[in-house]
Structures are given as C-alpha cells and as structure tokens.
C-alpha cells in the first residue's frame, strides 16, 4: 500500500527532473552532395542518468527534398531502432529509439547522438528539429524526464558553400521555415558580425571535431541582441575559429558605437570584449568594462584572436567553473568516446587527459562568466 501511494499518488521528484536537448551545431551551410553530422546532446539535470529515449526529428518540410538521412553514428546506448517516415504535411520524420540495458552505474547523464545526413544535389534550405513528442527516461521505471527542446531547430542551407562567398545560385536561398514561432527574424539593415576567436588549449585545427557551438551576445545602445542557439564555428590550421554561416541574432543590431560583445564557447566561460582587436600579455587576463566597438551596417569582422577564451564551464553550463566541472574531467580521464569528448575534452584533441585537467584547474582562478 505504501509503495502504491509513493509510486502512483505521490510520484518521486525524479518525475520532475529535466533533460535539456541541445544541438552541437545550430546552422549548417553545406555544398551539394556533402555529408555532415548533426549532433544532438541530451543532458539530464542534477547528474541523473539516461537509460532510454524515443525521439522524432522533422526535416524536409513541404516536400522539399533537401537532405537525406545516411546513418546513425555510435552513441553510448546499446540498442537503437531507427525509422524514417513521411508525415502528413509532406515533411519527413526520423524516429530514433534508444535503450540501454547497462546497470545504473554505467549509465551517463549526457548522451551525444550523431546523425549523419547528406545534402541532395540541389540548392535549398530546410530545418531539422526535434518534435515535442520526445520521451526520455531514466533507469527507474517511473523516472520519466521532462524534455526541454531547443527553441529553434537546426537550420541547413545547401548550396551556399563558404559564407563569405557568392551564393552558388543566382538568388540567395530563402530563409528556412521554423518549427516554432517566437523568434524575430534578423533585419537586413542591421550590423552583421564575423568573429575570429581563440580558445584556451587549442593551438591548431582539432583532429576530432569540425565545429564548436558558440553563443554570442551584443550589448550597447540600449539593446541586447543574442543568438538564440549556439552558432557553429570552425577552426583553421592555426586554431582560430570563425563562424560557418552569418551569425543570426534575435534582434537587429543598429549601426553605432559603444558596443560590447560577449562570447562563450561550449566548454568555456563567457568573455566580455569591448574593442575590435583586443590583446593581452598573459592568457585570460584581458578585462574591460565599457563597450567601445563600432559596428557598421555592413559585415563587421572583429578579430578577437589576440585574447584567449578560457575553458572550464563544461556542459551543462551554469556560468561558473567549480567542482562539478573539475570532476567531469577527472571522472572521464583517458576516455576517447564521443560522450566523454563532448563534455570534457577542453582542448579538443580527441582524449580527456591531464592537459584538460590542467586547463580546468587553471580556469578555477577565472571562475565566472564575465557580465
């Protein structure tokens, strides 16, 4: 009787725990016939373990045949059922069912799912997003999580190639449709940013990853414009990262002076930058208070590679480097699997090792997101 009351009438707090879903890359600009990976990270709050998931992704809306599903890449889950079905509105639905029979101790609180897709041989754009029917469960029977889905789906443009290059087709592709409403489309008259960034511990093009999600915020002139989802940045051979597509903000940024730009990488603390080409004598020591960046209504290239963005705030990020972050590195030492790399490989060299541990210990002295 007591178990009945506890289980059914007064369910445990675990039923209220959340799993946050995020996309490792929010925007893709790819060539025709190009294969690329879509990373979907499931992160349970409070270190709860994930043992199963039923996820449906929607893409190619309105019968537009822009991308094809290719394969499903290694995840920590042991069983998977994948099916691709067409939905009533002409879109395609990709259903992914994951389950693990591992004991609770071997389960993870973060699960990275990589889905390989291929662009079709035509120009176009589509969105790829998780539907709100997603179900994720923990190892206990009644341990069903509340699933927090990203506000904006992934935007995929085929045929655009290099963002700085002229579009391949005669006219630029139309903006992709969205699965959700609420975001304000950027205005063409606002400032456009191109950033050059350098991250702690990364001195060359990483071997194990092609992109990093970076959140960008611009503050000044009474506005605060931010990217609603992390923007994909790619590294060159010297370890300098630039966005793979124009950065889309939730508000138009009018031309003007006095702006400050805030940037935060996927394993970093947030940095506030007040000039277009900042420098520092020692890594991580640049600080500023008053925004002094001038933005025009054209493309503004801001070279922030003279300073280093400190690592340390690991997923799930909370704006502070603390024992949770150091422990993530320590508990994943020596690991090379996708899940471990996605949460603790700070220098992106393909293994969680003592270098990452040294970086995070050093980051403890910087500790906070700059505001």
């Amino acid at each position, binding site marked *: 009787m007591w178990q009945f009351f506890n289980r059914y009438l007064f369910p445990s707090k675990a039923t209220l725990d959340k799993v946050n879903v995020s996309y490792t890359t929010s925007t893709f600009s790819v060539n025709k016939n190009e294969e690329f990976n879509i990373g979907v990270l499931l992160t349970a709050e409070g270190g709860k373990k994930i043992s199963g998931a039923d996820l449906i992704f929607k893409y190619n809306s309105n019968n537009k045949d822009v991308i094809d599903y290719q394969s499903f890449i290694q995840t920590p889950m042991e069983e998977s059922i994948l099916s691709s079905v067409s939905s009533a509105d002409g879109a395609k639905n990709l259903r992914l069912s994951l389950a693990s029979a591992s004991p609770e101790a071997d389960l993870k609180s973060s699960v990275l799912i990589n889905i390989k897709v291929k662009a079709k041989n035509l120009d176009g754009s589509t969105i790829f997003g998780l539907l709100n029917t997603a179900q994720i469960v923990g190892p206990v029977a009644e341990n069903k999580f509340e699933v927090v889905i990203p506000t904006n789906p992934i935007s995929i443009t085929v045929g655009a190639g290099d963002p700085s290059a002229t579009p391949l087709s005669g006219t630029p592709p139309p903006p992709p449709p969205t699965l959700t409403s609420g975001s304000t489309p950027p205005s063409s008259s606002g400032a456009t940013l191109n950033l050059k960034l350098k991250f702690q511990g990364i001195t060359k093009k990483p071997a194990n990853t092609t992109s990093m999600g970076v959140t960008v915020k611009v503050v000044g002139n009474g506005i605060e414009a931010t990217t609603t989802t992390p923007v994909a940045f790619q590294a060159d051979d010297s370890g300098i990262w630039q966005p793979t597509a124009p950065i889309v903000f939730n508000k138009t940024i009018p031309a003007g002076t006095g702006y400050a730009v805030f940037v935060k990488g996927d394993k970093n603390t947030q940095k506030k930058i007040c000039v277009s080409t900042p420098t520092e004598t020692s890594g991580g020591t640049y600080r500023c208070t008053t925004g002094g960046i001038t933005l025009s209504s054209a493309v503004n290239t801001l070279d922030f590679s003279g300073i280093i963005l400190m690592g340390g705030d690991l997923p799930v990020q909370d704006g502070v480097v*603390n*024992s949770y972050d150091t422990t993530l590195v*320590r508990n994943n030492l020596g690991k090379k699997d996708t899940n471990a790399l996605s949460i603790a490989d700070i220098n992106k060299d393909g293994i969680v090792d003592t270098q990452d541990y040294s970086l995070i210990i050093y980051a403890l002295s910087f500790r906070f997101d700059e505001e």
Partner: protein
Amino acid sequence: MENQTPVTNNKQDHYRLLIIIVILIFAGLLIFLILSRAKSQKTGFNSQETKVTITSTPALQVTGGVLSLVSTKQSYIMNENISVDVLANSQNFDIVGYDVLINYDSQALELIQAESLINEFQIFKINDPGKLTVTGTKNLVANTSNIWTDRKIIQLTFKPKKTGKFYINITNQIGKEKTQFVDSYSKVFIPQVGKIPVEIN
C-alpha cells in the same frame, strides 16, 4: 438505598478525575510531539552537537549530505587565532569534488588560512571580504574512496579584528555559486549547511 448514593457519586467523581487525567496526559503528549516536530523541522535534524546550528536555505533543495562547522572553543580573546573546521557527512556517496561557500563578518574577522585536512584533496580558494569560496578536487593519483562520516575536510583560521559575537556561516548559494558535493559519477548533491557562533572578548 440512602447509603448507596454518596458511594455512587464518589465513584463517578473518581471516573471523572481519571478521564480528566487521561485527557490531560494525552493533551500534554500531543503538545510535546507538536513542539518536538516543529523544533526538528527548524533545525533540520536532531543534533546533540550544541556548538553547531544547522540551517537549510529554502532556495535550494537539499539532496544529500551535511556540511557543518565545528570548533573546540566558542570564546576567544583578541590576538588569539580562531580555528574552525568544516565537518562533512557524505551519506555513503564517494566524493570526488566539493564547493563550500562561507560567509563571515569581514569587519570582525580576517581569514588567515584555509587548508585541506585530507591529503588526497587539493583546494582552491577565492577570498573576497566576507565571502570565501573553497573548491576541493581529488588528486588524479588518489584511488581510495572518500565516503565521509563526520570527517573534518577543511581547517579555517581567522584573526579577530574586534570584540563581540559573530557567526561564520556555510551558505547554500551566492549568485551562481553553490555549496555542493560531487561524487565519482559526477552527480551533484546539495548538502544541509550550518553555522557557528564565535565570541571575541
């Protein structure tokens, strides 16, 4: 018949008295239970440790463990260093890292030193006036488990600056920072926290 009436009345009086006594005892027990429960909820647990007062901050739900402060003395004189230990109970979880946020009156106390009392743990501290953050992380080469039952993990040394009665508090949360334990599965626990009075004469 005439003699039976006083006897009956006497018996009835005894019954009434007995019933009243039972009711009074019952009422007394009820009041005692209510007061005990209220006290237990306020203090967090029934501690026999008089030097430590446990308080819980409602902003964060306590999910496991206890961090409290203990000292061999409560009363100090000026120019005498105050030594306070952080006492940890990890409730059977194997701890690999922790954060402890400590508030103190910077007008009355000056932090001289914070040191780890467990060799396997390295600590990193940030001391702003009146606020100390200590992050402890287990050394990479340490392999033994750290399940703590009333284990002293940090020793704090303060220097008195003025006389009076003051409190040193472990607090659950300041801004984005939290007092927390992290175990060998990277699971985070929010512990009950405590404070200790310090009297400087």
